[in-house]
């Protein structure tokens, strides 16, 4: 008996190193820190830990604008993490060119990502010179209007079904002491608002001319002037909104303090954490209820090159895990985002996610700002929009002129 236990113990010690070799720590940096986001990222961690490796969470608070510089300086400064989030698109373009990321092409071919990832544009933005460098994990679209049923009930008006009805309901909301539109102070939120308004008011053709064709004449056109007029309207609606972060603004909608917020579908996670039900406590209008198009940006994971082959192996395992069906479902349900593969079953999806899936299935998609403009140009847009939204002395005409100038010099 005792001999047997000893033998077992011995066998265990011999076997341990092999087991331990599999258990590799991988630090993963991301900027998912709000309630819904943290719940979603925990799904990744759980699945990765189940493979015998260890997910070391490197959450960086403050949103992408704060987190990306930290990530980039760590990668370029020679202290790379195991994996890191970026928005797929052009944010990491130069880092890929400099050869700082692991090439995932073999894995992608083995698992046939080309056929499962839908829409294909997601994988295209991970591809440089035919090689694949990142794993898209979800689709996020920023063109959503979130409306608080409570706020509209208090104001005694029906919940709007599109932007115009919403604007018409503003006086009633103000009367009831509500902030008509919640908007955080961070620059990207103003630019997101502009993007949504641009599609809703300006229409798809104009959007394509300006964003894809980078046509400065279209940006100066009278149609675009209408977009800026609507922005000036939105500025008036949001002037009482004194919050910084987007989830604080979403919270104003949840509590019924604000009528609505234009925010990406990641706001969904916040409603879920607050136990609110779509269609009952809040409504969502993709494309502001006017043009139901969504842009297919989102998050992707990149894997910096590491010296340790064990870690590289763990990186590939994580990459394969992130696209796998069960993880995609678990993650996206928590996150409120859409899965990157068309072949998963989202039975549990709520009304808003179903709307998104329908739009996706109908192919009413556009590339995201991160995919069409460089970070430099995006920041210029952010600066312009936040300046415009917070300073009532800038006229819509001036803002449009400056906008067109940026489009003209965009890269």
């Amino acid at each position: 008996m005792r001999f047997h236990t000893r033998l077992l113990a011995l066998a265990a010690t011999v076997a341990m190193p092999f087991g331990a070799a599999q258990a590799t720590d991988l630090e993963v940096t991301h900027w998912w820190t709000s309630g819904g986001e943290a719940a979603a990222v925990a799904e990744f961690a759980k699945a990765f830990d189940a493979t015998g490796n260890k997910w070391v969470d490197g959450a960086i608070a403050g949103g992408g604008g704060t987190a990306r510089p930290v990530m980039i300086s760590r990668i370029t400064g020679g202290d790379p993490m195991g994996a890191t989030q970026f928005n797929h698109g052009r944010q990491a373009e130069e880092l890929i060119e400099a050869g700082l990321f692991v090439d995932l092409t073999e894995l992608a071919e083995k698992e046939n990502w080309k056929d499962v990832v839908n829409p294909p544009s997601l994988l295209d933005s991970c591809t440089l010179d035919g090689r694949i460098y990142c794993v898209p994990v979800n689709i996020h679209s920023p063109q959503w209007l979130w409306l608080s049923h409570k706020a509209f009930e208090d104001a005694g008006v029906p919940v709007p079904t599109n932007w115009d009805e919403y604007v018409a309901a503003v006086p009633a909301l103000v009367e009831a002491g509500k902030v008509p539109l919640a908007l955080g102070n961070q620059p990207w939120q103003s630019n997101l608002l502009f993007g949504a308004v641009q599609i809703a008011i300006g229409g798809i053709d104009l959007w394509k001319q300006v964003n894809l064709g980078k046509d400065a004449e279209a940006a100066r056109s009278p149609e675009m002037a209408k977009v800026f007029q609507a922005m000036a309207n939105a500025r008036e609606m949001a002037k009482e909104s004194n919050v910084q972060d987007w989830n604080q603004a979403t919270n104003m909608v949840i509590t019924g303090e604000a009528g609505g917020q234009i925010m990406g579908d990641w706001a969904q996670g916040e409603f879920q954490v607050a136990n609110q039900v779509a269609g009952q406590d809040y409504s969502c209008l993709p494309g502001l209820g006017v043009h139901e198009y969504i842009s297919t940006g989102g998050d992707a994971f990149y894997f910096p090159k590491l010296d340790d082959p064990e870690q590289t192996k763990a990186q590939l395992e994580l990459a394969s895990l992130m696209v796998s069906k069960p993880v995609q479902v678990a993650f996206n349900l928590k996150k409120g985002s859409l899965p990157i593969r068309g072949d998963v079953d989202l039975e549990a999806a709520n009304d808003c996610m179903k709307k998104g899936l329908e739009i996706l299935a109908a192919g009413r998609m556009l590339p995201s700002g991160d995919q069409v403009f460089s970070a430099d140009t995006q920041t210029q847009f952010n600066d312009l929009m936040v300046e415009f939204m917070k300073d009532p002395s800038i006229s819509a005409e001036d803002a449009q002129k400056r906008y067109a100038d940026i489009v003209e010099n965009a890269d």
Partner: protein
Amino acid sequence: MTRTGGNAPPVRGSAGGSRMSSNRPIRLFRNLNAKISAIPMIATALVVFVGGTVWTIIYSFTNSKLLPRAKFVGLDQYERLWNSNKWLISIENLFIFGICSLIFSFIIGFVLAALLDQKIRFEDTFRSIFLFPFALSFIVTGLVWQWLLNPDFGIQSVVRSLGWESFDFDPLYNANIVIYGILIAALWQGTGLVMCLMLAGLRGIDEDIWKAARVDGIPMWKTYLFIVIPMMRPVFITAVVIIASGIVRVYDLVVAQTSGGPGIASEVPAKYVYDAMFLSQNLGQGFAASTMMLLSVAIVVIPWAYLEFGGRKSHG
């Protein structure tokens, strides 16, 4: 042992002048040990500070994006910089913030120091209280004042709940005065240090001078203004250098309080540089902006340092 051994030759040489040439030793070799031991520091300063500065200036003429690239584009980055509204607002803010911060921290610091100098009771306690904010980081200071100045639950809501309903105080949410909201936090944090420097200066003034002034019947405020302050010149210079360096690199306070907002009304140059380099992934633009910062500091500092320290060399 080695120290005395090393020091010996030059001393002997200069004293006797017997074996070597009778002239004074070459200045470069005087105090050779100290100079050799300073070489690592000199090298660091040259490579890191001077080298880094030169590198930055050179690359500010390139179109480097996320990574430095030696593709020169002339003055393009500077043109874009000076056409950028954000940069102009940054400069204006730094100007207002700088001047106000310099004046107010001097006045408040000196008055506090003079009051503490009246041989009051619990001087240590007061000194600790005034100096305490300086022990906090800018981030903490910024967050505390962000909450205090928030109209929904800060000073404004407290005063309103006391009954003054029309009271308005929301500097951080008003683009026209936001820089003063930041100034308040900066003064709260910084004046304690200035006060301590001034207090040290005041303590350095000889008692006899006060006695003499009293004998002559000069009122106290006049003694301070015309006798004590001119005597405290070295302390003032130290304080100016410390405050000024803090002004130029003000960044974390802005990030913690407003992150540049509302809109871009509270942007500062240091934040512009950071944003350009890491947010826009446009190194060239960031380098151009930091070169302009260096240039403006140099324009102010070099003539002043020349006047202040240049003259002293002759008798030092």
